[in-house]
């Protein structure tokens, strides 16, 4: 898919929104305005946006506990997300999902997921659905390096390869599984090589480079749409913040994070490259920054003013037909 001027600005807007959203959440949680377990996506924006910008509303993605970025990239309404994280009735899940289950299936977003690896078989099922119903759709799973040690990953990849499903399995290798370095728990250097066990196509992308992710995801999505089967796409990336909001980060050398942030920040790299190449103007990006900040401020204000769920909602939506 060609990245024209409008598409480049849209990519920047999505990445900038993810970064600003996560930064805002850190403030809100630290100020005690928001509860629950929260895992932030800052640093990995190029992966979600580089993939999702090439998807349609009728394509499905399944996400992880670190799911805000995938939601924003897939087009879930930011105000509804903010309201959800404030636990309001106007949230995209009516205040019943929260950070680890944030979702909007109408946007093809099958949810963040509190269980590591659980979104992978859901994606396989969505891909089976697309294939059998001939929707022309693809299904994309985002998951971390840690999830590739789960049985769900291996069982899913085996089935998807066997059935040539229109799926893309995107592993966001951010170097850390919770508090443990990836190389301590995974014997292979490149997770992408695990695809060989399933005779599946694979690729490795620089997950800090929007353009590299975009190109390699584009090939994988095209392969899926053409009926040529699934791909395991490893994006090497980095988690700028802790495992969760409030993580004291005592287990990770400060210099390691600083090096990634100083030299490989996906937003900085996107900006440098596009401006140097004369593809966008600095003023255009600054205008997006302001628009994003304004939209977020309005989302927070609206969420704080929004009604709380009625207690009668506790037993609603358990079954399609109503309460048990």
């Amino acid at each position, binding site marked *: 898919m060609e990245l024209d001027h409008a598409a480049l600005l849209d990519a920047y807007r999505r990445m900038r929104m993810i970064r600003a959203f996560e930064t805002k959440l850190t403030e809100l949680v630290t100020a005690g305005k928001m509860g629950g377990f929260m895992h932030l996506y800052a640093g990995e924006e190029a992966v979600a946006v580089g993939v999702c910008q090439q998807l349609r509303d009728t394509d*499905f993605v*399944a996400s992880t506990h670190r799911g805000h970025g995938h939601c924003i990239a897939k087009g879930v309404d930011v105000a509804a997300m903010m309201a959800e994280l404030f636990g309001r009735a106007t*949230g*995209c*899940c*009516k*205040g*019943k*999902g929260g950070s680890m*289950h944030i*979702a*909007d*299936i*109408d946007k093809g977003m*099958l*949810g963040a*997921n*509190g*269980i590591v690896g*659980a979104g*992978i*078989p*859901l*994606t*396989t*099922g*969505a*891909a*089976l*659905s*697309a294939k*059998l*119903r001939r*929707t022309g759709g693809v*299904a994309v799973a985002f998951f971390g390096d840690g999830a590739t040690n789960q*049985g*769900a990953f291996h*069982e*899913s990849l*085996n*089935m998807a390869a*066997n*059935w040539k499903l229109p799926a893309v399995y995107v592993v966001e290798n951010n170097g850390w599984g919770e508090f443990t370095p990836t190389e301590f728990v995974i014997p292979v250097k490149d997770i992408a090589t695990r695809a060989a066990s399933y005779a599946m196509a694979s690729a490795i992308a620089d997950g800090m480079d929007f353009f590299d992710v975009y190109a390699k995801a584009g090939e994988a999505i095209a392969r899926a749409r053409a009926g040529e089967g699934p791909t395991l796409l490893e994006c090497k990336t980095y988690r700028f913040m802790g495992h969760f909001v409030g993580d004291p980060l005592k287990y990770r050398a400060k210099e390691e994070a600083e090096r990634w942030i100083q030299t490989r920040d996906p937003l900085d790299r996107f900006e440098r490259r596009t401006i140097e190449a004369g593809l966008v103007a600095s003023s255009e990006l600054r205008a997006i920054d302001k628009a994003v900040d304004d939209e977020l401020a309005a989302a927070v204000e609206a969420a704080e003013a929004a009604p709380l769920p009625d207690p009668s909602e506790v037993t*609603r*939506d*358990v*079954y*399609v*037909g109503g309460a*048990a």
Partner: protein
Amino acid sequence: MTRARTLTFGQAVNEALRIAMETDPDVILLGEDVAGGGARTGADVDEMGGVLGTTRGLVKAFPDRVLDTPISEMGLIGTAVGAAATGLRPVAELMFIDFLGTCLDPLLNQAAKLRYMFGGKARVPLTVRTVTGAGMQAAAQHSQSLYWITAGIPGLKTVIPATPHDAKGLLLAAIRDDDPVIFCEPKSLLFAAGEVPEGDYEVPIGKARLAREGSDVSLIGMGATVRMCEQAAEQLARDGISAEVLDLRSLAPLDEEAILATLEKTGRVVVVDEATPRCGIASDVAALCVDRGFDFLNAPVRRVTAPHAPVPFSKTLEDAYMPSAAKIVAAVRDPR
């Protein structure tokens, strides 16, 4: 109603699957050996149709919609959940409910909760067919009655028919239900025969069946224990004790009104469950009788269940393990 024929429980299940697939192109079957290897190779061999032959013939009728999976319960059940949430109406086969341990997450944390977590936006019209119970000397890992686990998970429905008639009608209802349903096929009933109407009909989920009317005591069973209750009622009748038999059919939702109605009528309940006694359906029914039916009770509620032990192999031990008509009669005669 159309003509009824005699079919086995397994044949009734097969007929329901065929009707469901004929009437809705989004219904697919997936599971281990639901077709069976030879069927797709072009060789002149019959398909297996599942380890107990229940799905035989369906792959020939619907070659693109009967999918053999690898022996990957987590993968196949998880895939079925994802397919159900995105437009298909899958019927997944979990060969034996004992294998629930390998695929609990897709049911417990995904299928059961997607709709709720998404604020009512998702539907998961999934049916999981699974074989339950003892009686074939299949021993500890192929004989359990673990429906108490799924019945206890909000967001799932769990049904267990006791007759071929209800097997067909309940399975059609389960497949067409927009919520995930665990459909239990008691292995000791799979080859039992009974009258089954031709054509398309549903048995509503959530409704118990009064299998026998009586006035002195209510015997409440489910699945394979319904027949035991009926046999016990015959024996008791010879001694002048009139036993009513209620077949729960649906474990979640539970037909509380039918349970309370039979309790009100007889004043005594013996609940009979093939499962182990702790945290189970029998305890649930007993608790309901005490919570909401205390004023109707003329005697303590008795539970006749398997013991708190794994299912043994030896026929002698398996018989000792299982509830039976004799144990039910003894419980009725000894109200404590």
